[in-house]
């Protein structure tokens, strides 16, 4: 076979190369575009990943009565009545130096330190002191050997009587290291509960005041409220009381169901954690329900085997540690998720690191320290929280709430997507309510009744309408239409009725005009003659509006709305949004519907007209039903656009996540929420991932809508090819 000339081989080689490049490039690009969805999903999925628990070792130590873990997880301070404070390096277990000052050993009473490192001790000399343990770390020093433990002992208050057990204490006022603070302590005596209040720098012994309780109640646990004014008391009979310590008056009470074993607080000190002798765990809060304070159980957790010995709260979020002799669990308050559940080998004390990522258990008998690490980056989100009603702190009942950030560190993030989805649906509904009739009727007129020349002017105009940037629409909606509507709400609402009336009057009047005139200027051009009707309608509305307002609404429509319907009027409300979004959506529905209506085969319309039907009857009863799949498809596409619209919603609503259908207040949609919150969301944090989840939902939903619309359109096209 003769060899090919060189330019031909080159051409063939180039052909093969380009085929490879283009195919490769095409596949790559398509893959990249579709991988977008996967990336967004990948960023959102870690929200639902279960927590990972790992055994972090065992350390031998002397038996202790309490432990406090450092934030870095590298050191632990143990407290025991016989040996005082001792510190160990983790995970090695070697000892660290501890200052020797402090109450005289052996201690008469020791309250185990909480996650903040606060503890109360009664020394052998009968003096009561409080400590706030802290490590002093030279700048950037990671080696615990270089740290110094500073217990910040304060108090040294002599006591006259010594209780059976100190239950809880609270420091009030002052708020610094320099004293001026008051200490309140509640303790259990053989006769019952008693409390004392003393300034921290007191030198004389304060008196214990007994707390009067009902005769049949035997207190087992007690804790001060956050402001130190109320006392929460748990009893053997299974009652939980909120009482005023001075008078013993019970402000509120609740039934716990079994003997209260221990009481603790979650971060923020407003949610009460109660543990029972048979392992029941519940969270209570003081809420105002109908003018009275109630102690309300607002979260319940899975029971544990055995009596709940104590609670430790994380300082980072709302998770807490609870333990019994045989099991330790870490639960999250808001979602009621169990993040960690490990078996223990005997009675002892447990501690939680401030970030909630390290759990330590000290056996009472053996003193061995067991450590577990917990990795739960998003405990405050669960499927139930995203989509169901959740009972948040401070709320009367479970609600759908979106409130992602707050001013304080102990803020409870509320990530319910339901108000956002509701807002999206609300905005879409109002937009479609406005856009659908306008677009479909307009398309009907353009395809069936307008003259060809007019049609060629109308179609490009509407396509230009489709090109309007939504920023401009949003700006007009927010800064021009909203104030206008506020001033002239009644006129604007009267306008459509005025125009309707005039249109129905103009029609027979038009029929009276001489035929030559109508033929020359009329057929196919009615739309132009409606412009004066529209202007007349505007004028009529302008005149009738104030009249109606004065007669029917007593002068101001806002007060009428408030008194008659109980709704407030916001300037940036759903009517404005509906109008602006409708404006954005009308051209989409119009174009596709007009295409569908025009492609109805001529034979059908001719046949109908030949049977004697009027143009309108043909259009309404023959063309519209035949083209209805196309109109359906148009609505789907328009719906997709309305759901994803961001800028108009950002600018024309108050962006408040309200959940009612009133057209007079605003809304917050998924898309606007993403745009507002994601720039500030910490990278890979919970809010970041929830927003990615919202983006994923938007993507999937609009994609499905558009695909359904496209398939319907293709089927319609094939159907007409055969007609």
């Amino acid at each position, binding site marked *: 076979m003769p060899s090919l000339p060189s330019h031909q081989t080159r051409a063939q080689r180039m052909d093969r190369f380009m085929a490879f490049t283009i195919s490769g490039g095409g596949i790559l690009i398509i893959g990249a575009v579709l991988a977008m969805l996967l990336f967004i999903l990948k960023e959102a999925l870690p929200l639902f990943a279960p927590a990972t628990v790992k055994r972090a070792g065992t350390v031998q130590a002397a038996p202790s009565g309490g432990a406090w873990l450092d934030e870095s997880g590298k050191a632990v301070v143990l407290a025991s009545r016989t040996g005082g404070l001792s510190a160990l390096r983790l995970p090695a277990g070697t000892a660290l130096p501890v200052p020797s000052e402090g109450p005289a050993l052996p201690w008469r009473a020791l309250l185990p330190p909480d996650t903040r490192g606060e503890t109360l001790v009664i020394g052998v000399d009968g003096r009561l002191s409080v400590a706030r343990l802290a490590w002093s770390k030279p700048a950037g020093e990671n080696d615990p050997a270089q740290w110094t433990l500073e217990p910040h002992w304060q108090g040294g208050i002599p006591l006259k009587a010594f209780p059976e057990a100190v239950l809880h204490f609270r420091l009030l006022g002052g708020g610094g290291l320099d004293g001026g603070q008051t200490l309140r302590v509640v303790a259990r005596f053989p006769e019952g509960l008693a409390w004392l209040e003393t300034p921290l720098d007191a030198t004389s012994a304060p008196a214990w005041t007994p707390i009067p309780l009902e005769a049949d109640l035997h207190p087992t646990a007690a804790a001060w409220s956050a402001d130190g004014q109320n006392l929460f008391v748990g009893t053997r009979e299974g009652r939980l009381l909120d009482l005023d310590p001075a008078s013993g008056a019970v402000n509120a009470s609740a039934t716990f169901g079994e003997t209260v074993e221990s009481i603790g607080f979650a971060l923020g000190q407003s949610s009460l954690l109660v543990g029972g002798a048979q392992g029941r765990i519940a969270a209570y809060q003081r809420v105002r329900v109908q003018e009275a304070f109630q102690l309300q159980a607002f979260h319940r957790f899975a029971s544990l085997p055995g009596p709940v010995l104590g609670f430790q709260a994380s300082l980072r979020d709302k998770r807490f540690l609870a333990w019994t002799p045989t099991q330790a669990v870490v639960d999250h308050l808001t979602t009621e998720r169990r993040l960690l559940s490990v078996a223990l080998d005997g009675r002892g004390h447990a501690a939680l690191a401030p970030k909630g990522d390290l759990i330590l258990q000290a056996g009472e008998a053996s003193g061995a320290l067991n450590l577990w690490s917990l990795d739960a980056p998003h405990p405050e989100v669960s499927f139930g929280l995203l989509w169901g009603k959740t009972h948040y702190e401070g709320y009367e009942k479970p609600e759908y709430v979106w409130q992602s950030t707050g001013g304080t560190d102990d803020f409870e993030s509320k990530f319910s997507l339901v108000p956002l989805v509701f807002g999206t649906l609300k905005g879409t509904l109002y937009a479609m309510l406005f856009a659908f009739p306008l677009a479909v009727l307009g398309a009907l007129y353009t395809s069936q009744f307008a003259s060809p020349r007019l049609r060629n002017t109308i179609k490009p105009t509407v396509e230009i309408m489709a090109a309007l940037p939504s920023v401009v629409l949003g700006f007009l909606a927010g800064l021009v239409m909203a104030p206008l509507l506020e001033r002239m709400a009644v006129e604007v609402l009267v306008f459509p009725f005025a125009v309707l009336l005039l249109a129905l009057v*103009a029609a027979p009047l038009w029929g009276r005009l001489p035929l030559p005139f109508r033929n020359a200027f009329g057929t196919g051009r009615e739309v132009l003659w409606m412009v004066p009707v529209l202007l007349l309608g505007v004028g009529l509305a302008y005149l009738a509006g104030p009249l109606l307002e004065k007669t029917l609404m007593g002068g101001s429509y806002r007060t009428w709305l408030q008194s008659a319907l109980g709704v407030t009027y916001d300037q940036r409300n759903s009517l404005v949004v509906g109008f602006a979004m409708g404006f954005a959506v009308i051209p989409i529905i119009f174009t596709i519907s007009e295409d569908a209506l025009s492609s109805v085969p001529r034979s059908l319309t001719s046949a109908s007209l030949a049977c004697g039907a009027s143009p309108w009857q043909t259009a309404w009863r023959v063309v519209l039903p035949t083209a209805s799949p196309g109109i359906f498809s148009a609505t789907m596409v328009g719906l997709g656009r309305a759901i994803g619209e961001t800028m108009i919603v950002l600018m024309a609503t108050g962006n408040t996540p309200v959940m009612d259908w009133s057209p007079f207040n605003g809304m917050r949609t998924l898309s606007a929420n993403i745009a507002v919150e994601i720039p500030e969301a910490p990278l890979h944090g919970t809010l970041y991932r929830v927003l990615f989840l919202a983006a994923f939902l938007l993507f999937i939903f609009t994609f499905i809508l558009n695909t359904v619309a496209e398939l319907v359109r293709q089927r319609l096209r094939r159907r007409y090819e055969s007609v």
Partner: protein
Amino acid sequence: MSRLADHFRRGGAFVWLSGTVLAFCLAMILALVGYIAAKGLGTFWPSPLVQVQTPDGPVLGELTGHEPAHGEEPAKLQFRVGNRDLFGQDFRWVTATGLGAPDRPKDALLIERLEYGPFIGRVASLSREGQPVATGPAALTEALRQLPATQRLRASIRATEKGQVGELNRKLEALRISRKKVEAKGDAAGLAALDAKVANLQADYDALQTSLEASRAALGAWTLGLETADGQTKELPLGSVVRVVPANALGRLDKAGVYLARLWEFLADDPRESNTEGGIFPAIFGTVMMVLVMSVLVVPLGVITALYLREYARQGWAVRAVRVAVNNLAGVPSIVFGVFGLGFFVYSLGGTIDQLFFSDALPTPTYGTGGILWASLTLSLLTVPVVVVATEEALGAVPRSQREASLAMGATKWQTLWNVVLPSATPGILTGLILAIARGAGEVAPLMLTGVVKLAPSMPLDSTFPFFHLDRKFMHLGFHIYDVGFQSPNSEAAKPMVFMASFLLLLVVVLLNLFALNLRRKLRERLGGSTF
């Protein structure tokens, strides 16, 4: 009666109804565009300064609005009185009744200045370095004479600050970063050399600052003594004056001159007063540059994908599904693209690039934060479907006869594509590109997340190497509208600017679309609907 019922049934009225509805839609479009055009274009025309006597004293300003009597409230007039530093707010509502006859004093002035918005009042005196030079009308004439020189001086100070001082700052910053590297290596000799360079640059910097100080002092030499309608006085250095408009003393031609001057300032100058005054040139430039980078990215992506789908892929249900998927991508909300751009481009890709190439500058991110490159990439992803659809249409419209003729002559598939099909399809591809540009110029939501800022310290294209700074943030016309309208402290005063910016954006987008649609229509007529 039956005639009426019959008439109703025949539906003539409903035809009218649907016609009305259509008329309403069209009227809305025209009203919207017209309103923006009128408000926007009317922004710069100097309106007359009206003085009225109210019970609280005289009020001098532009008449900007009126509210008719509503219920018990009387009719009100809104005046733009300016003088934010003296009055606290730009606008004032005045009851329309009980005013004296409105007066248009010939000596009333509107002075546009660098801070606090315009001053509305009269010139009382002109002084030079504390010594009064002229009073009354003579002061105004003398000030107008001195104004051009002052403005030139101010412009040259500005140019020096941005140019030379900025250049020195950049060099010092670069030296600081390399100093960190050298210090880490422990190279004492290198360190000494660097320190010498730094000292040199510092000396230049100080010299420049001294000369700038002298210029600034010269700028502050002339001072205008001004007086408002109600007698308050204000000393304004001539260097802060941008324009003096004696609105009531101007003839038609002069007003047109002021109009054109303001229009030119709007298009070519930088913004001042937190974006509520001055010009929007950086926003226009940023939009244009972003659109350019986006086009450079989107055309190859779209054309390759369309070529693959139509020419190289085996036609079957899989390719049809992919085509449907790519088309439907056009309907996905733009914010989703923005989220993807933020997560993938900015944080993942940008973070990796920073770790690999710009680790010295960390923790300040270079590419790990929004910038024009990521914004353009995001928008090109957004507009790829548009280009793909248009290119596929164009490729399909090339007659089979031409392809077959080329293949019959012995050309390879690629040669056919490159020499016969693509040239014919180029107008269609162009249409797609224009539609993509129109869409990209108007989208704001994805840009908000990937690199647009309210006020960019420098532009992505300037005279320092490497000239194209793809990591810089930029300003965008659409975002400017959102920001000035909704996030500026004085949105009422800024509204005219926003209208003009909206009009500009609208004009660009509408013209692009009209052009593209026209092109498409002509192509369809020429090639005859083979696939439509």
